[in-house]
Protein backbone atom coordinates (compact mmCIF):
# COMPACT_ATOMS: atom_id res chain seq x y z
CA UNK A 1 0.00 0.00 0.00
CA UNK A 2 1.38 3.40 -0.96
CA UNK A 3 1.57 6.23 1.58
CA UNK A 4 -1.47 8.51 1.39
CA UNK A 5 -0.87 11.83 -0.37
CA UNK A 6 -0.12 14.86 1.80
CA UNK A 7 -2.30 17.96 1.50
CA UNK A 8 -1.20 21.42 2.60
CA UNK A 9 -4.09 23.32 4.22
CA UNK A 10 -3.74 27.07 4.78
CA UNK A 11 -6.39 29.12 6.55
CA UNK A 12 -6.23 31.86 9.15
CA UNK A 13 -9.46 30.68 10.74
CA UNK A 14 -8.28 28.06 13.28
CA UNK A 15 -11.68 26.34 13.39
CA UNK A 16 -11.90 26.00 9.66
CA UNK A 17 -8.32 24.73 9.55
CA UNK A 18 -9.00 22.12 12.23
CA UNK A 19 -12.21 20.96 10.58
CA UNK A 20 -10.57 20.69 7.19
CA UNK A 21 -7.74 18.62 8.66
CA UNK A 22 -10.14 16.29 10.46
CA UNK A 23 -12.14 15.78 7.28
CA UNK A 24 -9.09 15.14 5.13
CA UNK A 25 -7.53 12.79 7.65
CA UNK A 26 -10.77 10.84 7.92
CA UNK A 27 -10.71 10.55 4.13
CA UNK A 28 -7.25 9.00 4.35
CA UNK A 29 -4.95 11.93 3.63
CA UNK A 30 -2.02 13.24 5.56
CA UNK A 31 -2.16 16.94 6.25
CA UNK A 32 0.20 19.80 6.89
CA UNK A 33 -1.44 22.93 8.28
CA UNK A 34 -0.43 26.58 8.21
CA UNK A 35 -2.29 29.45 9.88
CA UNK A 36 -1.07 32.14 7.53
CA UNK A 37 0.27 32.56 4.02
CA UNK A 38 3.57 33.60 5.56
CA UNK A 39 3.80 30.42 7.61
CA UNK A 40 2.88 28.38 4.53
CA UNK A 41 5.59 30.07 2.48
CA UNK A 42 8.09 29.09 5.17
CA UNK A 43 7.01 25.48 4.84
CA UNK A 44 7.25 25.37 1.04
CA UNK A 45 10.99 24.58 0.62
CA UNK A 46 11.03 21.70 3.11
CA UNK A 47 7.58 20.18 2.77
CA UNK A 48 6.42 17.81 0.10
CA UNK A 49 2.75 17.81 -0.64
CA UNK A 50 0.56 16.65 -3.50
CA UNK A 51 -2.06 19.40 -3.34
CA UNK A 52 -2.74 22.64 -1.53
CA UNK A 53 -5.98 24.11 -0.20
CA UNK A 54 -5.68 27.81 0.64
CA UNK A 55 -7.98 30.47 1.91
CA UNK A 56 -8.00 33.57 -0.24
CA UNK A 57 -8.20 36.34 2.37
CA UNK A 58 -5.68 35.94 5.15
CA UNK A 59 -3.15 38.60 6.19
CA UNK A 60 -4.10 40.56 3.10
CA UNK A 61 -7.10 40.30 0.88
CA UNK A 62 -5.01 38.59 -1.78
CA UNK A 63 -2.76 36.40 0.42
CA UNK A 64 -4.17 33.27 -1.20
CA UNK A 65 -3.29 34.50 -4.70
CA UNK A 66 0.32 35.26 -3.89
CA UNK A 67 0.67 31.98 -2.03
CA UNK A 68 -0.79 30.07 -4.98
CA UNK A 69 1.79 31.71 -7.23
CA UNK A 70 4.59 30.72 -4.82
CA UNK A 71 3.34 27.14 -4.82
CA UNK A 72 3.20 27.05 -8.63
CA UNK A 73 6.76 28.40 -8.74
CA UNK A 74 7.89 25.55 -6.49
CA UNK A 75 6.16 23.00 -8.70
CA UNK A 76 3.69 23.94 -11.42
CA UNK A 77 2.23 20.44 -11.23
CA UNK A 78 0.88 20.88 -7.68
CA UNK A 79 -2.85 21.61 -7.90
CA UNK A 80 -4.15 24.49 -5.79
CA UNK A 81 -7.72 24.71 -4.52
CA UNK A 82 -8.66 28.20 -3.39
CA UNK A 83 -11.47 28.59 -0.91
CA UNK A 84 -13.02 31.96 -0.42
CA UNK A 85 -15.76 33.69 1.48
CA UNK A 86 -15.46 36.64 -0.88
CA UNK A 87 -18.63 35.76 -2.73
CA UNK A 88 -20.81 35.40 0.33
CA UNK A 89 -19.33 38.38 2.19
CA UNK A 90 -18.64 40.96 -0.47
CA UNK A 91 -21.10 39.83 -3.10
CA UNK A 92 -18.24 39.44 -5.57
CA UNK A 93 -18.26 36.39 -7.74
CA UNK A 94 -15.14 34.79 -9.05
CA UNK A 95 -16.16 32.53 -11.87
CA UNK A 96 -14.19 29.37 -11.21
CA UNK A 97 -15.24 27.82 -14.48
CA UNK A 98 -13.58 30.52 -16.53
CA UNK A 99 -10.02 29.58 -17.49
CA UNK A 100 -8.95 33.19 -17.45
CA UNK A 101 -10.03 33.82 -13.88
CA UNK A 102 -8.39 30.64 -12.68
CA UNK A 103 -5.08 31.53 -14.28
CA UNK A 104 -5.32 34.98 -12.78
CA UNK A 105 -5.97 33.53 -9.35
CA UNK A 106 -3.23 30.94 -9.75
CA UNK A 107 -5.71 28.31 -8.65
CA UNK A 108 -6.97 25.21 -10.39
CA UNK A 109 -10.29 25.34 -8.60
CA UNK A 110 -12.02 28.06 -6.63
CA UNK A 111 -14.61 27.02 -4.07
CA UNK A 112 -16.96 29.23 -2.11
CA UNK A 113 -17.09 29.06 1.68
CA UNK A 114 -18.78 27.29 3.34
CA UNK A 115 -17.15 24.41 1.50
CA UNK A 116 -19.14 21.26 1.06
CA UNK A 117 -16.74 18.47 1.80
CA UNK A 118 -18.27 16.12 -0.79
CA UNK A 119 -17.51 18.65 -3.47
CA UNK A 120 -14.02 19.23 -2.13
CA UNK A 121 -13.35 15.46 -2.20
CA UNK A 122 -14.58 15.28 -5.81
CA UNK A 123 -12.22 18.07 -6.82
CA UNK A 124 -9.29 16.48 -4.98
CA UNK A 125 -9.82 13.09 -6.59
CA UNK A 126 -10.15 14.73 -10.01
CA UNK A 127 -7.01 16.84 -9.58
CA UNK A 128 -4.90 14.03 -8.11
CA UNK A 129 -6.47 11.47 -10.49
CA UNK A 130 -7.26 9.08 -7.66
CA UNK A 131 -10.45 7.39 -6.48
CA UNK A 132 -11.53 8.09 -2.94
Amino acid sequence: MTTPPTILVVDDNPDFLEQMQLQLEAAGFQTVAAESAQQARGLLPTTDFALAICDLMMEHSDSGFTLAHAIKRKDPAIPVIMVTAVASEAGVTIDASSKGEQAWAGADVILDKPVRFEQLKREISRLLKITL
Partner: protein
Amino acid sequence: MDNLRVLVVDDEPGIRFGVTRVLQSFRVRVPESDGDVGFSIAQAESGEEALTILAEGQVDILLLDHKLPGISGLEVLEKVASQDQDMLTVMITAYATIETAVTATKRGAYDFLAKPFTPEELKATTAKTARHLLLRREAKRLAEEKRQVRFQFISVLAHELKAPLAAVEGYLQLLRDRVVEPGSAKSDEVLGRSLLRIEGMRKLIGDILDLTRIESGQKKRELADVDVREIAARAVETAQPAARARQITIEVQGPERLPMRADPGEVEIIFNNLVSNAVKYNREGGRVEVGLSESDQAVVIRVADTGIGMSPEEVAQLFGEFVRIKNTKTRNVMGSGLGLSILKKLAALYDGTVQVQSTPDVGTTFTVTLKQT
Protein backbone atom coordinates in the same frame (compact mmCIF):
# COMPACT_ATOMS: atom_id res chain seq x y z
CA MET B 1 -16.29 80.97 2.68
CA ASP B 2 -19.54 79.29 1.71
CA ASN B 3 -21.57 80.83 -1.03
CA LEU B 4 -25.30 80.34 -1.34
CA ARG B 5 -26.99 80.79 -4.68
CA VAL B 6 -30.08 82.96 -4.60
CA LEU B 7 -32.56 83.10 -7.46
CA VAL B 8 -34.77 86.17 -7.47
CA VAL B 9 -37.90 85.83 -9.58
CA ASP B 10 -39.82 89.03 -10.22
CA ASP B 11 -41.19 90.74 -13.32
CA GLU B 12 -40.25 94.14 -11.91
CA PRO B 13 -36.64 94.89 -12.92
CA GLY B 14 -36.34 97.30 -9.97
CA ILE B 15 -36.90 94.50 -7.47
CA ARG B 16 -34.46 92.16 -9.24
CA PHE B 17 -31.69 94.75 -9.38
CA GLY B 18 -32.37 95.98 -5.87
CA VAL B 19 -32.18 92.48 -4.41
CA THR B 20 -29.02 91.75 -6.38
CA ARG B 21 -27.35 94.94 -5.23
CA VAL B 22 -28.21 94.40 -1.54
CA LEU B 23 -27.38 90.70 -1.32
CA GLN B 24 -24.20 90.75 -3.45
CA SER B 25 -22.18 92.27 -0.66
CA PHE B 26 -24.18 90.78 2.20
CA ARG B 27 -22.55 88.33 4.62
CA VAL B 28 -24.26 86.17 7.20
CA ARG B 29 -22.53 84.74 10.22
CA VAL B 30 -23.45 81.12 10.76
CA PRO B 31 -22.10 79.85 14.07
CA GLU B 32 -22.31 76.19 13.05
CA SER B 33 -20.45 76.76 9.81
CA ASP B 34 -16.88 78.01 9.53
CA GLY B 35 -17.00 81.74 9.01
CA ASP B 36 -19.40 83.79 6.96
CA VAL B 37 -21.76 82.88 4.19
CA GLY B 38 -22.04 85.05 1.08
CA PHE B 39 -24.50 85.07 -1.78
CA SER B 40 -24.39 84.91 -5.55
CA ILE B 41 -27.55 86.04 -7.27
CA ALA B 42 -29.31 84.86 -10.41
CA GLN B 43 -32.39 86.57 -11.85
CA ALA B 44 -35.51 85.48 -13.67
CA GLU B 45 -38.34 87.70 -14.87
CA SER B 46 -40.97 85.00 -15.25
CA GLY B 47 -42.00 81.70 -13.70
CA GLU B 48 -41.06 79.88 -16.90
CA GLU B 49 -37.55 81.31 -16.87
CA ALA B 50 -37.23 80.48 -13.15
CA LEU B 51 -38.13 76.83 -13.80
CA THR B 52 -35.51 76.64 -16.56
CA ILE B 53 -32.82 77.96 -14.20
CA LEU B 54 -33.99 75.67 -11.40
CA ALA B 55 -33.79 72.69 -13.72
CA GLU B 56 -30.25 73.59 -14.68
CA GLY B 57 -28.62 73.58 -11.31
CA GLN B 58 -28.45 74.15 -7.63
CA VAL B 59 -30.36 77.07 -6.18
CA ASP B 60 -30.22 77.41 -2.40
CA ILE B 61 -32.69 80.20 -1.76
CA LEU B 62 -35.57 81.12 -4.04
CA LEU B 63 -37.03 84.63 -3.71
CA LEU B 64 -40.29 84.23 -5.56
CA ASP B 65 -42.77 86.91 -6.51
CA HIS B 66 -46.33 85.84 -6.02
CA LYS B 67 -47.76 87.67 -8.98
CA LEU B 68 -45.99 86.87 -12.25
CA PRO B 69 -47.08 87.47 -15.83
CA GLY B 70 -47.16 83.85 -17.04
CA ILE B 71 -47.46 80.98 -14.61
CA SER B 72 -47.95 82.29 -11.12
CA GLY B 73 -45.55 82.14 -8.21
CA LEU B 74 -47.74 79.59 -6.48
CA GLU B 75 -47.55 77.31 -9.49
CA VAL B 76 -43.77 77.61 -9.53
CA LEU B 77 -43.78 76.81 -5.81
CA GLU B 78 -45.88 73.73 -6.40
CA LYS B 79 -43.57 72.44 -9.16
CA VAL B 80 -40.50 73.07 -7.00
CA ALA B 81 -42.01 71.30 -4.00
CA SER B 82 -42.74 68.21 -6.06
CA GLN B 83 -39.08 68.04 -7.08
CA ASP B 84 -37.99 67.82 -3.47
CA GLN B 85 -35.09 70.22 -3.85
CA ASP B 86 -32.70 71.08 -1.06
CA MET B 87 -33.79 74.70 -1.17
CA LEU B 88 -35.86 77.21 0.79
CA THR B 89 -38.40 79.54 -0.81
CA VAL B 90 -39.30 83.03 0.34
CA MET B 91 -42.49 84.40 -1.26
CA ILE B 92 -42.53 88.06 -2.27
CA THR B 93 -46.08 89.39 -2.06
CA ALA B 94 -47.44 92.77 -2.95
CA TYR B 95 -50.49 92.47 -0.77
CA ALA B 96 -49.93 89.96 1.97
CA THR B 97 -53.32 88.38 2.34
CA ILE B 98 -53.70 85.60 4.84
CA GLU B 99 -55.15 83.45 2.13
CA THR B 100 -52.06 83.60 -0.10
CA ALA B 101 -49.85 83.11 2.90
CA VAL B 102 -51.68 79.96 3.95
CA THR B 103 -51.65 78.53 0.42
CA ALA B 104 -47.97 79.33 -0.02
CA THR B 105 -47.02 77.80 3.31
CA LYS B 106 -48.98 74.68 2.46
CA ARG B 107 -47.01 74.43 -0.73
CA GLY B 108 -43.72 74.68 1.07
CA ALA B 109 -42.76 78.37 1.29
CA TYR B 110 -40.43 79.01 4.23
CA ASP B 111 -41.05 82.75 4.74
CA PHE B 112 -42.58 85.94 3.28
CA LEU B 113 -41.41 89.34 2.21
CA ALA B 114 -44.08 91.98 1.78
CA LYS B 115 -43.57 94.49 -0.98
CA PRO B 116 -42.30 97.13 -0.68
CA PHE B 117 -39.48 95.94 1.58
CA THR B 118 -36.41 97.76 2.87
CA PRO B 119 -32.87 96.46 2.37
CA GLU B 120 -32.84 95.69 6.12
CA GLU B 121 -35.98 93.56 5.86
CA LEU B 122 -34.49 91.72 2.88
CA LYS B 123 -31.25 91.10 4.77
CA ALA B 124 -33.02 89.91 7.91
CA THR B 125 -35.21 87.48 6.01
CA THR B 126 -32.30 86.24 3.89
CA ALA B 127 -30.09 85.73 6.95
CA LYS B 128 -32.80 83.79 8.76
CA THR B 129 -33.42 81.64 5.69
CA ALA B 130 -29.71 80.98 5.10
CA ARG B 131 -29.17 79.92 8.72
CA HIS B 132 -32.16 77.62 8.64
CA LEU B 133 -31.03 76.03 5.38
CA LEU B 134 -27.48 75.43 6.60
CA LEU B 135 -28.70 74.02 9.90
CA ARG B 136 -31.06 71.72 8.08
CA ARG B 137 -28.22 70.49 5.87
CA GLU B 138 -25.97 69.94 8.87
CA ALA B 139 -28.68 67.96 10.64
CA LYS B 140 -29.20 65.87 7.55
CA ARG B 141 -25.47 65.20 7.26
CA LEU B 142 -25.28 64.14 10.91
CA ALA B 143 -28.26 61.86 10.53
CA GLU B 144 -26.64 60.27 7.50
CA GLU B 145 -23.38 59.84 9.38
CA LYS B 146 -25.24 58.20 12.23
CA ARG B 147 -27.02 55.91 9.82
CA GLN B 148 -23.67 54.89 8.31
CA VAL B 149 -22.18 54.11 11.73
CA ARG B 150 -25.28 52.04 12.58
CA PHE B 151 -24.97 50.18 9.34
CA GLN B 152 -21.29 49.50 9.94
CA PHE B 153 -22.09 48.37 13.46
CA ILE B 154 -24.70 45.91 12.28
CA SER B 155 -22.52 44.44 9.55
CA VAL B 156 -19.58 44.02 11.93
CA LEU B 157 -21.88 42.32 14.44
CA ALA B 158 -23.39 40.04 11.83
CA HIS B 159 -19.92 39.01 10.76
CA GLU B 160 -18.70 38.48 14.31
CA LEU B 161 -21.71 36.28 15.09
CA LYS B 162 -21.55 34.35 11.85
CA ALA B 163 -17.96 33.20 12.31
CA PRO B 164 -18.42 31.32 15.62
CA LEU B 165 -21.76 29.97 14.41
CA ALA B 166 -20.11 28.51 11.33
CA ALA B 167 -17.36 27.04 13.51
CA VAL B 168 -19.81 25.30 15.87
CA GLU B 169 -21.87 24.09 12.93
CA GLY B 170 -18.77 22.59 11.34
CA TYR B 171 -17.76 20.78 14.53
CA LEU B 172 -21.25 19.36 15.04
CA GLN B 173 -21.30 18.11 11.46
CA LEU B 174 -17.98 16.34 12.03
CA LEU B 175 -19.52 14.54 15.01
CA ARG B 176 -22.77 13.75 13.22
CA ASP B 177 -20.97 12.34 10.18
CA ARG B 178 -18.69 10.30 12.44
CA VAL B 179 -15.65 11.98 10.92
CA VAL B 180 -14.73 12.36 14.57
CA GLU B 181 -15.60 9.29 16.66
CA PRO B 182 -17.92 10.18 19.54
CA GLY B 183 -16.22 9.56 22.88
CA SER B 184 -12.71 9.82 21.43
CA ALA B 185 -10.12 12.33 22.61
CA LYS B 186 -10.63 14.20 19.35
CA SER B 187 -14.33 14.51 20.04
CA ASP B 188 -13.57 16.03 23.45
CA GLU B 189 -11.37 18.56 21.75
CA VAL B 190 -14.03 19.34 19.14
CA LEU B 191 -16.66 19.79 21.86
CA GLY B 192 -14.31 21.98 23.87
CA ARG B 193 -13.67 24.24 20.90
CA SER B 194 -17.40 24.45 20.16
CA LEU B 195 -18.16 25.50 23.73
CA LEU B 196 -15.42 28.12 23.55
CA ARG B 197 -17.01 29.62 20.42
CA ILE B 198 -20.43 29.64 22.09
CA GLU B 199 -18.92 31.39 25.11
CA GLY B 200 -17.49 33.98 22.75
CA MET B 201 -20.91 34.56 21.23
CA ARG B 202 -22.45 34.91 24.67
CA LYS B 203 -19.84 37.54 25.54
CA LEU B 204 -20.49 39.38 22.31
CA ILE B 205 -24.24 39.41 22.90
CA GLY B 206 -23.64 40.69 26.44
CA ASP B 207 -21.48 43.48 25.06
CA ILE B 208 -24.11 44.42 22.47
CA LEU B 209 -26.71 44.67 25.20
CA ASP B 210 -24.41 46.84 27.34
CA LEU B 211 -23.67 49.10 24.42
CA THR B 212 -27.25 49.53 23.25
CA ARG B 213 -28.43 50.21 26.79
CA ILE B 214 -25.80 52.92 27.22
CA GLU B 215 -26.48 54.39 23.79
CA SER B 216 -30.24 54.47 23.99
CA GLY B 217 -30.10 55.94 27.48
CA GLN B 218 -32.67 53.31 28.44
CA LYS B 219 -30.59 52.13 31.32
CA LYS B 220 -31.43 54.38 34.22
CA ARG B 221 -28.28 55.74 35.77
CA GLU B 222 -28.20 55.42 39.50
CA LEU B 223 -25.52 57.54 41.03
CA ALA B 224 -24.28 56.43 44.41
CA ASP B 225 -21.21 56.81 46.60
CA VAL B 226 -19.00 53.99 45.42
CA ASP B 227 -15.54 52.83 46.39
CA VAL B 228 -13.59 52.51 43.14
CA ARG B 229 -10.99 50.35 44.89
CA GLU B 230 -13.65 47.83 45.87
CA ILE B 231 -15.04 47.64 42.34
CA ALA B 232 -11.50 47.20 40.98
CA ALA B 233 -10.92 44.34 43.41
CA ARG B 234 -14.14 42.65 42.28
CA ALA B 235 -13.16 42.93 38.60
CA VAL B 236 -9.78 41.39 39.43
CA GLU B 237 -11.54 38.56 41.25
CA THR B 238 -13.70 37.91 38.16
CA ALA B 239 -10.64 37.81 35.91
CA GLN B 240 -8.61 35.54 38.25
CA PRO B 241 -9.61 32.14 36.81
CA ALA B 242 -8.61 33.17 33.28
CA ALA B 243 -5.41 34.77 34.61
CA ARG B 244 -4.40 31.79 36.73
CA ALA B 245 -4.87 29.45 33.78
CA ARG B 246 -2.06 31.33 32.04
CA GLN B 247 0.04 32.13 35.14
CA ILE B 248 -0.73 35.84 34.89
CA THR B 249 -0.55 37.87 38.10
CA ILE B 250 -2.85 40.84 38.73
CA GLU B 251 -2.01 43.56 41.21
CA VAL B 252 -4.02 46.58 42.38
CA GLN B 253 -2.14 49.68 43.48
CA GLY B 254 -3.42 52.90 44.98
CA PRO B 255 -5.26 54.20 48.03
CA GLU B 256 -7.14 51.76 50.27
CA ARG B 257 -10.34 53.62 49.53
CA LEU B 258 -11.17 55.78 46.54
CA PRO B 259 -14.66 57.26 46.90
CA MET B 260 -16.51 58.49 43.86
CA ARG B 261 -20.04 59.53 42.95
CA ALA B 262 -20.91 57.15 40.14
CA ASP B 263 -23.21 54.45 38.84
CA PRO B 264 -21.70 51.26 40.27
CA GLY B 265 -22.80 49.20 37.26
CA GLU B 266 -21.02 51.51 34.84
CA VAL B 267 -17.78 51.55 36.81
CA GLU B 268 -17.93 47.77 37.01
CA ILE B 269 -18.27 47.45 33.23
CA ILE B 270 -15.28 49.79 32.81
CA PHE B 271 -13.09 47.70 35.13
CA ASN B 272 -14.25 44.37 33.76
CA ASN B 273 -13.42 45.51 30.24
CA LEU B 274 -9.99 46.85 31.15
CA VAL B 275 -8.91 43.95 33.34
CA SER B 276 -10.23 41.14 31.15
CA ASN B 277 -8.55 42.71 28.12
CA ALA B 278 -5.26 43.05 29.98
CA VAL B 279 -5.44 39.32 30.75
CA LYS B 280 -6.65 38.28 27.30
CA TYR B 281 -3.97 40.12 25.38
CA ASN B 282 -1.20 39.20 27.80
CA ARG B 283 1.52 36.63 27.43
CA GLU B 284 1.78 33.43 29.44
CA GLY B 285 3.26 34.31 32.88
CA GLY B 286 2.66 38.03 32.32
CA ARG B 287 1.57 40.77 34.71
CA VAL B 288 -1.37 43.13 34.97
CA GLU B 289 -1.12 46.29 37.05
CA VAL B 290 -4.26 48.16 38.02
CA GLY B 291 -3.31 51.61 39.23
CA LEU B 292 -5.84 53.90 40.92
CA SER B 293 -5.25 57.54 41.71
CA GLU B 294 -6.96 60.88 42.04
CA SER B 295 -5.92 64.05 40.33
CA ASP B 296 -7.59 67.32 39.59
CA GLN B 297 -11.13 66.33 40.61
CA ALA B 298 -10.85 63.15 38.57
CA VAL B 299 -10.37 59.45 39.19
CA VAL B 300 -7.57 58.03 37.06
CA ILE B 301 -7.59 54.32 36.28
CA ARG B 302 -4.46 52.88 34.70
CA VAL B 303 -4.40 49.27 33.59
CA ALA B 304 -1.07 48.08 32.25
CA ASP B 305 -0.28 44.67 30.81
CA THR B 306 2.89 42.93 29.63
CA GLY B 307 1.21 41.51 26.56
CA ILE B 308 1.40 41.50 22.79
CA GLY B 309 1.01 45.28 22.45
CA MET B 310 -0.01 47.17 19.34
CA SER B 311 1.73 49.10 16.60
CA PRO B 312 0.92 52.83 16.26
CA GLU B 313 -1.23 51.96 13.23
CA GLU B 314 -3.18 49.41 15.22
CA VAL B 315 -3.68 51.88 18.09
CA ALA B 316 -5.02 54.41 15.58
CA GLN B 317 -7.32 51.74 14.13
CA LEU B 318 -8.51 50.78 17.59
CA PHE B 319 -10.07 54.17 18.14
CA GLY B 320 -12.39 53.84 15.17
CA GLU B 321 -15.85 52.51 15.92
CA PHE B 322 -16.25 48.78 16.47
CA VAL B 323 -12.94 47.34 15.39
CA ARG B 324 -11.01 44.30 16.36
CA ILE B 325 -7.32 44.24 15.65
CA LYS B 326 -6.79 41.14 13.60
CA ASN B 327 -3.31 39.70 13.37
CA THR B 328 -1.62 36.38 14.04
CA LYS B 329 -1.17 37.34 17.70
CA THR B 330 -4.84 38.04 18.34
CA ARG B 331 -6.25 35.17 16.29
CA ASN B 332 -6.92 32.92 19.25
CA VAL B 333 -8.12 35.69 21.52
CA MET B 334 -11.86 36.02 21.79
CA GLY B 335 -13.10 39.54 21.59
CA SER B 336 -16.15 41.30 20.34
CA GLY B 337 -14.49 44.50 19.16
CA LEU B 338 -17.01 46.36 21.27
CA GLY B 339 -15.02 46.72 24.47
CA LEU B 340 -13.38 50.01 23.63
CA SER B 341 -16.59 51.47 22.18
CA ILE B 342 -18.29 50.67 25.47
CA LEU B 343 -15.39 52.12 27.42
CA LYS B 344 -15.43 55.37 25.45
CA LYS B 345 -19.19 55.77 25.77
CA LEU B 346 -19.08 55.17 29.52
CA ALA B 347 -16.11 57.50 30.05
CA ALA B 348 -18.00 60.19 28.14
CA LEU B 349 -20.82 59.94 30.69
CA TYR B 350 -18.26 61.11 33.29
CA ASP B 351 -16.84 63.78 31.04
CA GLY B 352 -13.82 61.52 30.86
CA THR B 353 -11.27 60.21 28.42
CA VAL B 354 -9.70 56.94 27.34
CA GLN B 355 -6.04 56.91 26.35
CA VAL B 356 -3.88 54.09 25.07
CA GLN B 357 -0.13 53.69 25.12
CA SER B 358 1.32 50.59 23.54
CA THR B 359 4.52 48.97 22.37
CA PRO B 360 4.42 45.77 20.32
CA ASP B 361 5.56 42.73 22.34
CA VAL B 362 6.08 44.86 25.45
CA GLY B 363 2.58 45.74 26.53
CA THR B 364 -0.33 48.14 26.54
CA THR B 365 -1.50 50.67 29.10
CA PHE B 366 -5.05 51.98 29.10
CA THR B 367 -5.69 55.15 31.07
CA VAL B 368 -9.30 56.06 31.81
CA THR B 369 -10.00 59.38 33.47
CA LEU B 370 -13.41 59.93 35.06
CA LYS B 371 -14.38 63.37 36.37
CA GLN B 372 -15.66 63.59 39.92
CA THR B 373 -19.02 65.31 39.98
